């Protein structure tokens, strides 16, 4: 017997509520990157100099992502799809949680900063991977796949650095 609520336990109403336009998604993503960039820039002013380079690199990476999304939003091919509605993944709340950037404390060390940044990249990667899953075949799917891979690549870079610093007798 099929469920009266449709697929799983998600009602049609809920499904509709989870539909967002590409424009909204890209704006959220840009806000995500912008907030992170600002967060890291402010953090750079609070940490000691040995950590400042790391935090500045993180800020620069977020800025690069922001510009990437901005370019994607303004690309003619994206503009053609900008009003399309796409199912937003169930874990969207986790992505949004990071947009608000929970406090790292007043004096985070390199390990805490890297753990935080890796968690953030992981959430972003999963978010875009889910969006790629639900997007229709075509340029939108390709775009989300690209964004997902981009976040995963950055997470990989951070993990390598984490290993060097924390597990290999760094400082």
């Amino acid at each position, binding site marked *: 017997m099929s469920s009266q609520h449709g697929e799983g336990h998600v009602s049609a109403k809920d499904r509709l509520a989870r539909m967002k336009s590409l424009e909204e998604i890209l704006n959220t993503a840009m806000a995500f990157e912008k907030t992170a960039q600002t967060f890291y820039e402010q953090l750079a002013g609070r940490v*000691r100099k*040995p950590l400042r380079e790391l935090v500045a690199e993180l800020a620069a990476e977020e800025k690069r992502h922001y510009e990437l999304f901005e370019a994607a939003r303004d690309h003619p091919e994206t503009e053609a799809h900008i009003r399309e509605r796409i199912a937003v993944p169930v874990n969207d709340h986790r992505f949004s949680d990071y947009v608000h950037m929970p406090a790292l404390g007043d004096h985070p060390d390199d*390990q805490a900063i890297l753990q935080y940044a890796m968690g953030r990249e992981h959430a972003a990667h999963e978010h875009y991977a889910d969006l790629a899953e639900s997007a229709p075949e075509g340029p939108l799917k390709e775009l989300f796949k690209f964004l997902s891979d981009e976040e995963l690549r950055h997470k*990989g870079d951070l*993990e390598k650095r984490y290993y060097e610093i924390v597990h290999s007798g760094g400082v």
Partner: protein
Amino acid sequence: MDVTPKYKGSFVKPLKALSHLFREPVTLPMVPRPASDNYRGFHVNDWELCVGCGTCRQICDNAAIRMIHIPGLPDDPAAGLKPRRPAIDYGRCCWCALCVDICPTGSLALSREYVHVSPDMNTYFILPDEKGIHGLNFPKGWAKTDDADLLDLARQPMPQRDPDSRGDNFDEIVHGYDDQAAILEASRCIQCGMCHEACPANMHAPEYIRAIWEGDKERAVREIYRTNPFPEVCGRVCTHRCETACSIGKRGAPIAIRWLKRHAMAALDDERVRTIALEGKVEDRTGKSVAVIGSGPAGLTAAFDLAKLGHAVTVFEAKPEPGGMMRYGIPEYRLPYDRLDADIAVIRAAGVDIRCDSPVGPDLPMDKLRDDFDAVMLATGLGAGRSTRVPGTDHPDVKSAVALLDAITRGESIDVPGRAVVIGGGNVAFDIARSLARLQRKTSGRVDMTLVALEERDHMLADEEEVVEAREEGVVVLNGRGPRQVVLAGPSDKTLGGLETVRCLSIFDEEGRFHPKYDDGDVMLHEADMVIEAIGQASDTGYLGEDLTEALEWARGRIEVGADGATSVSGLWAAGDMVEGPDVIHAVAAGHRVAESIHRFLGGGTTTLEAAE
């Protein structure tokens, strides 16, 4: 010219000549006859096997072999690879094949090809080719066989105490070579010098091995002290990069260079060692003063060199005894304190003033040191332990390996846990696991110690002997497990219950980046009263103060230094673990570089101790 009738020949001679026209020629074609199986023809060399050690050149009495640099070949001294290959001068070669019989890798052989005719002399001087001199792929003739091999590939065993007699005490495990074993071991060395280039301090290992073989231990100690003021330490706990690069190790067991150093040092009494070590010391004082912060291998090596060059050197050490992590990080069963003290006594005898219990900080600020001394060196190491920060690691019974090892060295009372789990797969993890296992056996007569490492058995970061000996002493080593959380004994019980680990499927991704993947279906609980974290170490540079921290340049969290250890702030150097990561011999090498740089800075020119000898 008239021809006499005698030579004119018969009138039928032209007919005779015509008859030869149809005969088979009597000259043979230039195709050599097949040579016998063991024929010693031209050389062939497998370039994949050859490491460019040049042993073939050294053994050739006819000087028929030269080593030629080949651009593009692997150049990795640490792995024992040189980008050069032998070229043979066949105007000199006598085909004795000693080069083949001595070749440590077995790459060199002789083919069965033996004919080479050319008016061009240059073609007789050639790089051996795997296909032979003419590229004709002649089969091998003389090649290395077990009975023709001039090398002894087996190492002299190091006598040491068995697990039962060492499991409840901190007495040194190894006994050391006796004279006969040392000479036999030294006789295996082919003097190729790969060890010298692999050693961060470029120790003169071939020279001291040869001296040991000749029975001249004073000369051996003299050679050792040319580049290393910590021979007692490095004769025991060096990471022996030299042995990794050893040519003999390509097919057999590398020369036990570390143990030979230990043997040479043990042969002389401390007073004699001191006299040899201080040879070449400049008696005239320069009037310049240097402060060294930290008394680990980098700081004390620089201090020793500078003192020998006539500078007044003061070392400031925060702890009660000098030595840094050599004393407070390495257990005594690997490095007895009296042997570390012997090395440090030599350094003190050179005139170095070591002030212990003298932490740089509020009572002894950096500014004052920089004002009072002409140069300052930072060598404060990696004294703080890292935490995995998995849930529960803030429990009071989760300890840092570095802090526990420090407490054991100080002789502080430790609540020895009945059951303990160590997280980590490096030497520090094994140091604390084996130390606590000894204390467990001593206090309760039984060992309950588990070590969990992310790495699989074949990729452990710790030395192989550490893993083997730990297991012999009752430590359970579990590979491929990552910590998930520290758990409590019960819902309302705040005491530690143990560590939960999860199976680690892989640590690195396809591109070699740290990206552990876990199997969440394979979870284990290791019941324990104490969990010890030994995953890595960190530097505490808070003593620098805000102004100096801001003035210095930093790179990836570390103080940025040039090749000579100079920081971006004039008159200030940094070296050792805090700059390069943990390793004694790297720290010694860095100490030398800093001393040379400070000496130049103080107006001492380019004179170095090595050059002065």
